């Protein structure tokens, strides 16, 4: 039982269907995923989950990320797939970094606020500064949007 394989569960068809269904909504923002792009994102999701040692049941986080970020002024068709892939990786990483103390919606909301705000669409900036500080605040049990005292 504990050979670990069961921890990498996958319901690919359900995932693909959900992600494809999101196209109906994202079309009005000029964004859409092809079948290949969808399959690529689902594969990346599997790798991210494996790397972060997490198990996901149900429809997964990708549709939520799509709905949250599709109206961002910094996301357009050319960088859509890459951005979703990075956001997905970051999401699982910072779920772990925040010790599962925050809900999916809280983390996505923070990511979106930072991405559209201080990070101005930079995924590197979001990952290395905004999310890093956010996870630290969560671990310390501080208010999620409170500024930390600068000790320098």
């Amino acid at each position, binding site marked *: 039982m504990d050979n670990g394989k069961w921890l990498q569960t996958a319901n690919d068809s359900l995932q693909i269907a959900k992600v494809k269904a999101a196209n109906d909504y994202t079309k009005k923002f000029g964004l859409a995923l092809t079948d290949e792009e969808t399959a690529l994102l689902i594969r990346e999701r599997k790798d991210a989950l494996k790397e972060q040692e997490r*198990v996901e049941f149900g429809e997964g986080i990708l549709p939520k990320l799509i709905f949250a970020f599709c109206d961002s002024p910094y996301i357009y068709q050319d960088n859509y797939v890459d951005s979703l892939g990075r956001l997905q990786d970051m999401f699982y990483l910072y779920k*772990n970094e925040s010790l599962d103390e925050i809900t999916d919606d809280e983390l996505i909301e923070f990511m979106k606020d930072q991405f559209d705000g201080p990070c101005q669409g930079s995924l590197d900036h979001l990952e290395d500064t905004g999310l890093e500080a956010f996870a630290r605040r969560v671990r310390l049990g501080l208010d999620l949007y409170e500024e930390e005292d600068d000790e320098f």
Partner: protein
Amino acid sequence: MSFETEELLPIVAELADKYTGKESSSITYEKARQLMEAVLYCIHEYEDYPSERQELLLTDRKMVAKMIYGLGYEKVLRNVKETQVLYNKIIPDFKYYENRCYYDTFVKGIPSFFLYYDPRFQPQNHILTLDYPVLHPIYSLRGIDAISAFVKCISLEQVFLRKLPDEYILHVLRAYSPDHGELIINLTAIVLRNVLGCRMAGKRINTQGYTPGELGRLIDYVNRNDSAELKQDMEGLVDELVRSGYDGLEELGDYLKADLHDYCFELKNAVENQCLDSILAI
């Protein structure tokens, strides 16, 4: 009935949903393993009690697994309730005979278990280390099974000890070690050994030591038999003791007999090396 992992995954997924309050789509491997263990524990709970098994007429194995898990979970809850009732019955008259480990494990530890035990998400974790060493081995048990077995053992110990005067029990414990209050030892075994010693020596059970004649009788008794015969004789003595003093309580007899194997070897060794005072209140 054994299930494939895939048949159990929907139950784990459901538990994960309950655990996160549907606010997180993913959980860590560690948490997933814990939930899978919880499911397996409940299924084993159901399977371990054949008398309570029901005929399941479902053909869908996933449904069967879910139903068996549900029945096992109910069994866990019932077991917790029953153990709590037994604990509440013991605690008003519970005596710990100055032994701190006995007191801490039973009076402080067990209520904390009932407070923090999580039958839904971690029924396999009994939280406590159960430091007081009871005579029945419970180390292979987990969750409420371990606590239930432990409380039953303590219940039998209290039945046994309460029939004897406190002064006598404290006398033999002091003879065993002046630090008996701080040691992690089984009190029942020490008292039983002394009671059986008295029977073998043909002396009354009292706080006075052994006369040379009584000691000689005891040594003769031990030397007459090898360990196996000695154990058989002692089982007879325990049966007699339980019949005469404890209304033939069979469970108690079985419990007390769990110590006889070690006792026989130690007694033979003590006679050979002339150190009977290490196990009896000479």
